[in-house]
C-alpha cells in the first residue's frame, strides 16, 4: 500500500528551482533512502512534505488523503514525524521534558497513528538516554542529540518517520547503532524515509533508494541497481565508489 505519494512536486525559491516535477512514493513498511549531492533538494522535499513551506505546485497524499498545504502541526498529528538536519531540541528542557512535551502535543488523543505504543521511559531506554533523563538538552553530546531527535519524533507515535541526515558526522560504531535502530523501527511497523550522505549505511539499510540531482529525480530503485545507474554515478557517487 502506498503510504506517502508525491505527484509533480515543484518548489521555486524566487528564481531558484529547488524541486522540479518530482514524483515519488513510499510504501508501507519500507525503508527508503533519499540521496543526492548537496543542493539536490532533499531537505526541501522533507520541508514540503511536513508543511514547513508549501510547494509551488504538485500534490502530496498520505494514506490516500490529500495533505498538500497543511500546516506542520496538522501533518504531525496525522502521523508524519521528522528530525532536523541540525538538531533542534528544546535546549532548556531536560531530555525527559523534551519527549514529554512532544508526546502531549504530537498526536491526537494520545493514541497516535502507529502500532507502536511505547511510553516515555521505554523510549528513553531504547535510545540509551535513560541516565540522561534529567540532563538539559543543551548539555548533550552530538550523538545523544541525534538520539534525542529520533526519540522525540517517535514520541508523536508516527506511522511515517522522516530522518534527515541522522548519521552525519558520527563514527562507525554510532552509525551502526543508528542503522540497527532504524531497522528495528521498521520491524516495529514504522515506515521510514531517510536522507543520508553516508553511502554505505544508506545502501545497506534501504529497501529502495531515490536519487535527486538539481531538483529532479534521476533514479529510483533497489540500491544495487541505483549504484550502477550511469546518471547517478556521474551526478553523485563518483567513479571510485563504483569500482569499490
Amino acid at each position, binding site marked *: 500500500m502506498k503510504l506517502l505519494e508525491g505527484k509533480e512536486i515543484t518548489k521555486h525559491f524566487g528564481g531558484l528551482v529547488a524541486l522540479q516535477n518530482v514524483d515519488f512514493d513510499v510504501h508501507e513498511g519500507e525503508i527508503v533512502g533519499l540521496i543526492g549531492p548537496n543542493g539536490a533538494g532533499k531537505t526541501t522535499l522533507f520541508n514540503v512534505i*511536513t508543511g*514547513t513551506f508549501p510547494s509551488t505546485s504538485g500534490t502530496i497524499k498520505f494514506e490516500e488523503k490529500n495533505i498538500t498545504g497543511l*500546516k*506542520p*502541526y496538522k501533518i*504531525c*498529528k496525522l502521523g508524519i*514525524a*521528522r528530525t*532536523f538536519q541540525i538538531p*533542534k*531540541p*528544546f*535546549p*532548556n*528542557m531536560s531530555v525527559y521534558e523534551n519527549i514529554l*512535551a*512532544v508526546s*502531549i*502535543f*504530537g*498526536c491526537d488523543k494520545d493514541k497516535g497513528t502507529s502500532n507502536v505504543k511505547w511510553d516515555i521511559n521505554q523510549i528513553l531506554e531504547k535510545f540509551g538516554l535513560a541516565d540522561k533523563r534529567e540532563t538539559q538538552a543543551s548539555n548533550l553530546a552530538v550523538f545523544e542529540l541525534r538520539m534525542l531527535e529520533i526519540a*522525540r519524533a517517535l514520541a*508523536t507515535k508516527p506511522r511515517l518517520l522522516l530522518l534527515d541526515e541522522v548519521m552525519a558526522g558520527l563514527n562507525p560504531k554510532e552509525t551502526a547503532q543508528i542503522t540497527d535502530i532504524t531497522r528495528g523501527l521498521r520491524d516495529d511497523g514504522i515506515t521510514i524515509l531517510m536522507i543520508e550522505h553516508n553511502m554505505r549505511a544508506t545502501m545497506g539499510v534501504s529497501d529502495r533508494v531515490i536519487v535527486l540531482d538539481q531538483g529532479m529525480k534521476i533514479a529510483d530503485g533497489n540500491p544495487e541497481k541505483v549504484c550502477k545507474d550511469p546518471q547517478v554515478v556521474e551526478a553523485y557517487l563518483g567513479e571510485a565508489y563504483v569500482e569499490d
Partner: protein
Amino acid sequence: MNLTNMKFSTLLKLSPIIIFIVLTFAPLFAKTYHLALVTSVLCWIGLAVSWHFFSGTTKYISLGSAAFFGVGVYITAIFGKSLPFPVVLLLAAAINFLFALCVGLVTLRLKGIYFAILTFGLAELLNNAILFWEMQVTGTRGRFVTPIDVYYPILIITFIIILAVIILRRTKLGLGLRMIGESEDAAVHFGVNTTLYKVLGFAVSSMFMGLLGAAFSPRWGYIDSGMAFNPLYSFMPAIMTLFGGTGRIIGPVVGAIVISLLEEYLLTTFKDYFMIILGGIMIIVILTLPEGMTGKLLKKNT
C-alpha cells in the same frame, strides 16, 4: 533531603500566602507613604509577571505593554462614573483581551526586533491618536477619574495574576508557549499550533496588563494620554524581567521589587542623578549576571 531543608522549602512555598496576609492587614499599621510605595511595587510585579508570561517565555519581546496598560487606564476614566468599579475592571479585561487578539494576529507574524518595534509603535500610536482626538474633537486634555484608594484592588489583582500565571504555565497553553520560546520550528513540527498559542498567550498577558491599568487609574485622579501610555510601562516590565531572570516566575517578581525599590531610593536620595546611577547598575548586572539575579541561585538548587 534533611529536615531543615524540608522546613525551608515548605516555608518558601507558603511565603506568598504569608506575604499576602501581611499585606492584607498592612493598612492597619503602615504609613500612607509606605502603602503608596507598596501599591506601586505590586503594580510593577503584576506588569512584569504578565510580561514574562508571554514575552519572557516565547522570547517575542513586546515593548507595547503601555498600550494595554493605557487602554485599561482610559476605560476606568471613561466608564468609572457610570459603572461599578468591579464591572469596569471586567470590561477592561475583556476589551484588552479582544484588542490584543487583533493586534497579535497582525504583529505576531513578525519576529525579533520587528515585533519589538511594532509593539512599541502601537503604544505611541495610541498615545498620539488619543491626544489628537482630545485636542481636535473634544477640545479637552486628559480626563478626571474619581479618586479611590487602589491599594486593595491592586493587591488582589496582582495576586490573582501571579496565581493565574502559575496555573497557566502548567497547562497546555503554558507548555506550548515554552516550546515556542525554546524552538519555534521544532514546536510547530511537533504538533503545536504556534499561531494560535502565540496570539492566545499575547492576549492573556495583555488582558492582565489592562486589568492593572484599570485598577491603577483612580490613584491619579486625573489622567492624560501621556501618563496612561507612558513608555516606562513598556520598558520597565521587560527590564525587570530580564534583570530578575526569565525561566521562572520568581524572576520577574524579584526583578520588579528590586528595580522599583532601587528607583524609589535613588530618586529620593540623588534626585538629579538617579537615572544615570540606575542605568549604571543595570549595565553591571546584565554584564555579570546574564541569566538574571535569580538565574545563578536557582541553578545551584537543581
